[in-house]
């Protein structure tokens, strides 16, 4: 394939971009690619190559019996084939996972579990804004000399403050 730019050399760099809703693939020779100012994906240096420095050295012919994925294919595209692959290739991929995340121990949610990250803070915010509303209502009640309502509001505010 010839370079899209100079139409002379062989294209060795292939860039796919998504601009204005259109997928465009450009094929360039190394020389033209280096002159382009946009980010260039070098064919000889991919993320998977980079990650493979973490992979443990094991036989590449190992294969997952469920989906047929081999360790070799994982090293190529960085993708596992199914849930079972995580078991089959455990020894090889754990170092890679550790390399990416600095950890191999999940500490997050389990399926079906409800996660409410800032529940405490949110409840506190709600309480504060309720208190503000009650205080405004109290002032209004006093202003119109509705003392029965004012007394009730005062007690409610006191109750909220006790709870804090």
């Amino acid at each position, binding site marked *: 394939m010839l370079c899209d730019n100079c139409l002379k050399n062989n294209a060795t760099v292939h860039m796919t971009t998504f601009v204005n809703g259109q997928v465009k693939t450009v094929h360039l020779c190394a020389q033209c690619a280096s002159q382009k100012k946009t980010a260039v994906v070098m064919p000889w240096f991919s993320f998977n190559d980079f990650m493979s420095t973490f992979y443990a050295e094991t036989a590449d012919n190992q294969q997952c019996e469920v989906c047929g994925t081999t360790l070799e294919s994982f090293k190529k595209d960085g*993708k596992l084939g*199914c849930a079972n692959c995580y078991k089959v290739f455990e020894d090889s991929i754990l170092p890679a*996972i550790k390399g990416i995340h600095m*950890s191999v121990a*999940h*500490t997050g949610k389990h*399926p079906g579990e*409800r996660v409410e990250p*800032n529940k405490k803070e949110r409840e506190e915010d709600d309480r504060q804004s309720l208190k503000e509303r009650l205080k405004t209502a109290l002032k209004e009640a006093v202003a119109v000399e509705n003392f029965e309502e004012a007394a009730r509001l005062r007690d409610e505010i006191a109750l909220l403050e006790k709870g804090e």
Partner: protein
Amino acid sequence: MKWLKAGAPESDVVVSTRIRLARNITDVPFPARMTAPNDAEKVHRLAKESLLKASDFRYFRLSDMSELEKRVLVEENVISADLLRSRFGGLISNSDQSVSVMLIEEDHYRLQSLASGLDIYKAYDEADRLDNLLSEGVQYAFDEKLGFLTSCPTNVGTGLRASVMLHLPALTAAKALPRITSMIGKVGMTVRGAFGEGSAALGAFYQISNQITLGVSESEILSRLLSMANKVINFERGTRKELYSSLGIALEDRIWRAVGVLKYARRIGDAEAQKLLSDVAFGVSLGIVEGITSGELYEVMMNTRPAIIAQRDGHINPAERDAARAEIIKKVLTKEGR
């Protein structure tokens, strides 16, 4: 774009918040190794059974959609460009598309929740509810040690990718982005340009998101992203003021020129509109331009992307589209009192 609304939290700097969760079915090959149409059907069917009972959701098969419809969804940030390359791609979304699930992208399910402005917890809350609704009918690929199993080990664990889209014209002008990028990179997060080709960030819009998904809980990921976003927001606000006090009329000139072109141009391209609307939003936040909010400007910017205009007005050729874009922007900028 139905989900993006003006008047959102911190919208002088933050355009939107996005939460994505990667999930897979335990006994079906991941999309990259999926060959049997039956497996794909199962992925679609289980999601439909779990989610369509929530009345607001609708199901779409990508192969039934036109090219234009699909491109609109990409521009609206509802689906990824990668989903277009999937043989068995599908989508389930609610009516304003703020909550959705991509079917058979890199993983079986990519759950997504979008919110305007900085609203990380609200967006996560929606995603978490959706996740639990889906898990009622789907046996997830989950491992006690590694968490949710994903096609690519970069997403394993929580499967959570949280991101905020920020408008950083001042930090861009002050050439501070490389420093901020390297700082953010040190704490397991990443920054990239939200629009434009390669690394060039068009209109100074950037996305900050977490990189690490394993060994940290959802709460930790979200609170770290939130504090980092707040830090960058404050940098940006401070730098805006500093730039204005040092540049003065030169900055005003740039902003009023942008207003002028947007008000009077009869044809305008997507990239130019984005850049100029970015300048006007910058001016709004400094009180130079009045009577419009940053949120309204982001809205018009997002709603004048090429495919969105083509779908709305039926303009197919680029010149007609540019004329339609100029018309829409002019209307927004010249509304009464401006």
